[in-house]
């Protein structure tokens, strides 16, 4: 067995799933004051998937998780970690149910809450579980039913967010193996907590001493300020991991940022000195799927051949909290 001080988390399998219901820009334009042209030019999005009534985030997570397990040839793992902003319930966490539904009752299971940075935080903590010997294999899932928290009157968010799930299996291995994750950079800025939020449903609203506003149940985001901060924070975080890894921007073969908005993504690539042609992007087809965004983009790229073994990959994300995180890996032969 690899001694603990040399253990790294190695990417060993990947899977993805989106709910079948497709929502086009045309459909949204019928009920909101917008147009296909407006949505495409501002966000790069042409369609997104939304869950049907009766579905919940765990359903998407189980589908993606099962596919990742199959991809890695694992029947089981020692821990299930779910990154999500839309758990099935506020209590308990959704991961234990996912583990049970995948036939793994008994393993460690918990949720990570870091909005769009959730998957990076989940990768880092899962790598930690492996590094400390708590787990040999971890199933890391990013899953969202963001459609469940969108304000139907908020054009800005209604056109951007979609539902979906992506999952990876991590196993213990050597730090210099293909697929080894790291170094990581993680950060937060709680002074921006108000910029990306669902105000209601928690202790702040419950103990407020007055009834909640109807809008409190919905997701709200200060678009312009978030755009600005996203570019800045992801830029700094990405540069940090590149320096730690000893990679020049020109050596990055594939760049996967959180799929927030195509304009932000292009801006970021330019700022980092990474060719836009090396960006992986599926936002046109699935929209912004928050914590599922990065694993979904990776899974799609692995499937269509955009991502290949040997590629040096940079991952970076920014989200509510505010939070941000980045890591690098050399894509393994999956």
């Amino acid at each position, binding site marked *: 067995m690899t001694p603990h001080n040399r253990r790294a988390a190695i990417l060993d399998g990947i899977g993805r799933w989106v709910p079948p219901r497709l929502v086009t820009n045309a459909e949204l334009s019928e009920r909101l004051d917008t147009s296909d042209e407006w949505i495409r030019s501002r966000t790069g999005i042409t369609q997104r998937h939304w869950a049907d009534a009766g579905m919940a985030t765990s359903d998407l997570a189980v589908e993606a998780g099962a596919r990742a397990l199959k991809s890695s040839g694992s029947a089981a793992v020692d821990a299930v970690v779910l990154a999500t902003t839309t758990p099935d319930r506020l209590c308990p966490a959704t991961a234990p149910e996912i583990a049970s539904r995948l036939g793994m009752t008994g393993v460690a299971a918990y949720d990570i809450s870091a909005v769009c940075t959730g998957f990076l935080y989940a990768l880092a903590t899962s790598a930690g579980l492996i590094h400390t010997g708590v787990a040999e294999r971890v199933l890391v899932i990013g899953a969202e039913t963001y459609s469940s928290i969108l304000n139907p009157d908020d054009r800005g968010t209604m056109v951007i967010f979609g539902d979906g799930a992506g999952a990876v299996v991590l196993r213990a291995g050597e730090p210099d193996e293909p697929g080894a994750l790291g170094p990581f950079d993680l950060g937060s800025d709680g002074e921006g907590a108000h910029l990306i939020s669902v105000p209601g449903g928690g202790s702040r609203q419950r103990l407020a001493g007055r009834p909640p506003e109807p809008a409190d149940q919905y997701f709200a985001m200060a678009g312009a300020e978030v755009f600005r901060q996203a570019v800045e924070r992801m830029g700094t975080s990405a540069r940090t991991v590149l320096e730690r890894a000893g990679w020049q921007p020109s050596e990055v073969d594939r760049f996967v940022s959180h799929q927030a908005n195509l304009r932000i993504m292009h*801006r970021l690539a330019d700022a980092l000195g990474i060719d836009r042609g090396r960006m992986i992007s599926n936002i046109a087809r699935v929209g912004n799927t928050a914590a599922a965004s990065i694993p979904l983009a990776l899974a799609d790229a692995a499937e269509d051949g955009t991502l290949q073994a040997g590629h040096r990959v940079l991952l970076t994300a920014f989200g509510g909290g505010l939070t941000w995180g980045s890591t690098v890996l050399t894509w393994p032969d999956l």
Partner: protein
Amino acid sequence: MTTTYEKMADVLVEKFGVDRDELRPDVTFEDLEMDSLFLVEFVLTLQSELGLKIDEDAASPRDTLGAVAEILEAQIARAS
């Protein structure tokens, strides 16, 4: 007009696909269909072009191009 105004116009035409014929100092960003999200991007682009950190509230959709050019001129003058 001023060099700053011309730089702004160039950025709007080249990077944001605005028709040069639509640009006049008394036109607002809103008239050009540039909302606050586009403006963030516009300000970030100008920062690189002008080589200076621009205050976040230098431009809002209701501002005219001329007014913003003057604000930027003042910031450039302070910086040099």
